[in-house]
């Protein structure tokens, strides 16, 4: 299953807050690591640390990202091994500093060192377009743009895509641009059908980047966050399965999209069919 040789840096970004970046970072990191890739996930949201909670390792945080950048701790001291998967490590954010504590050189040094031993580095970007978000995306090889089917989220994602095409090391060095992926989260086919929510095609028309997956709106996500077990581990839930599919697609597997159609739609179609029959 494992073939990765060159370390790949993935940024999980969105512009807008609360759309599911940290949930996605956690689930993606778990998904990659569970397939045998040595994976590190870094919380770039300095001052608003959350990833440790979602990953359920908040009680084991001693040193953080900023400590490493400032030379107050080495990387091995700060990396927290995941409780479920042995190939997964978490680098938590500092809760007591602000985003100005991050420097380009500091981030570069940490990523270089991680690249020596890790296959994938997942960067959980903070919301906004300021320093934290810009540094999270700067070194990325791939970007997963997390978007809710809602106009302000779509516009912010569009803005992020603009920055991704100009404000990254790849863009500045004129190298091949990073790969962009759209992950549509909190999708509710029922509300789309009612016209309350933008549809997948509406979002696709505006953003026009390849679709990595659709994560359905699910009770399982909140439950997972509160329990500190990333939702991808909940194999019974639709959101967990959707994340697993998305990780597979990210690794190049051909998996058909699910959770786009309304549940029980076949019943509705059958009824429609019957109605037509009777008319």
């Amino acid at each position: 299953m494992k073939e990765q040789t060159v370390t790949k840096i993935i940024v999980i970004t969105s512009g807008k807050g609360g759309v599911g970046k940290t949930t996605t970072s956690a689930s993606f990191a778990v998904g990659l690591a569970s397939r045998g890739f040595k994976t590190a996930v870094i919380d770039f949201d300095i001052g608003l640390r959350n990833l440790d909670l979602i990953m359920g390792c908040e009680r084991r945080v001693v040193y953080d990202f900023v400590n490493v950048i400032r030379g107050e701790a080495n990387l091995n001291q700060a990396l927290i091994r995941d409780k479920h998967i042995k190939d997964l490590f978490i680098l938590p954010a500092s809760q007591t500093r602000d985003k100005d504590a991050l420097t380009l050189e500091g981030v570069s040094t940490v990523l270089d060192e991680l690249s020596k031993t890790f296959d994938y580095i997942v960067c959980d970007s903070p919301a906004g377009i300021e320093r934290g978000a810009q540094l999270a995306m700067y070194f990325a090889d791939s970007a997963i743009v997390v978007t809710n089917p809602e106009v302000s989220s779509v516009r912010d994602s569009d803005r992020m895509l603009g920055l991704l095409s100009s404000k990254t090391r790849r863009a500045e060095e004129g190298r091949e641009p990073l790969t962009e992926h759209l992950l549509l989260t909190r999708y509710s086919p029922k509300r789309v059908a009612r016209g309350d929510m933008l549809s997948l095609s509406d979002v696709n028309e505006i953003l026009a980047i390849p679709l990595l997956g659709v994560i359905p709106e699910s009770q399982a996500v909140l439950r997972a966050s509160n329990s500190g077990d990333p939702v991808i581990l909940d194999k019974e839930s639709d959101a967990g399965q959707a994340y697993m599919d998305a990780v597979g697609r990210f690794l190049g597997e051909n998996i058909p999209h699910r959770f786009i159609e309304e549940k029980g739609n076949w019943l509705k179609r059958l009824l429609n069919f019957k109605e037509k029959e009777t008319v």
Partner: protein
Amino acid sequence: MTVSGVAIDQNTCFQFKANFLPCTVLQVMRYDWEALEQQLLNTIRNAPPFFSDLPVIIDLDKIKSLGPLNFVKLKELLVANKMIPIGVRGGNEEQHLAANAAGLPTLSAGKLSVAETKPQKKEEPVVRLTKLVTTPIRSGMQVYAKESDLIVTAAVSQGAELLADGNIHVYGSLRGRVLAGVQGNLQARIYCRTLDAELVSIAGYYLTKEDMLHSPLGDGMKQIYLENEQVRISVL
């Protein structure tokens, strides 16, 4: 009528803006000083407020063939009646010299200025390369085609801004702001396929999305241009 989209911060002392003041043209048709003076006084008497502080350009097109007028007296007469003589246009070289001597500059205003006594050098034809953008223009991005046209073959998102001194062509879906002729070129035009723009502007005249809600638009290429200081949209 401001030219939107030019970054202004606290350090900015001034900005140039395209502007069009109403201006009255005094077209001299027959040069008979006493008759002219009389006619002018009579005209003013009918509506004095109208002529107060009125900028006036003296047009000499109709009396091209005659010799110089007494521009000093003409200027004094206009000033005495509270008008503001700006300059002369049309006419011949001799008239221009006399007008210039009286402190009335020669305005070209779309007409060939003969006042330029230096023989004009034949200029090399300047071909400005059209700026071409083939990647999507995302929200927050700004593209400016300085002294040229702009062609965009990809989509222009909401919150993106296109600016050009010349014309703008957009072949992808258009949801952002488009400003053509930003240096004041009234002839500039915008061409697009799907028009869902937030704002379209020609030389500072603009329509917002709200203004365009009721524009009769079907499918097909659209043309946006300026006509009588009004921004018009037509389907090609």
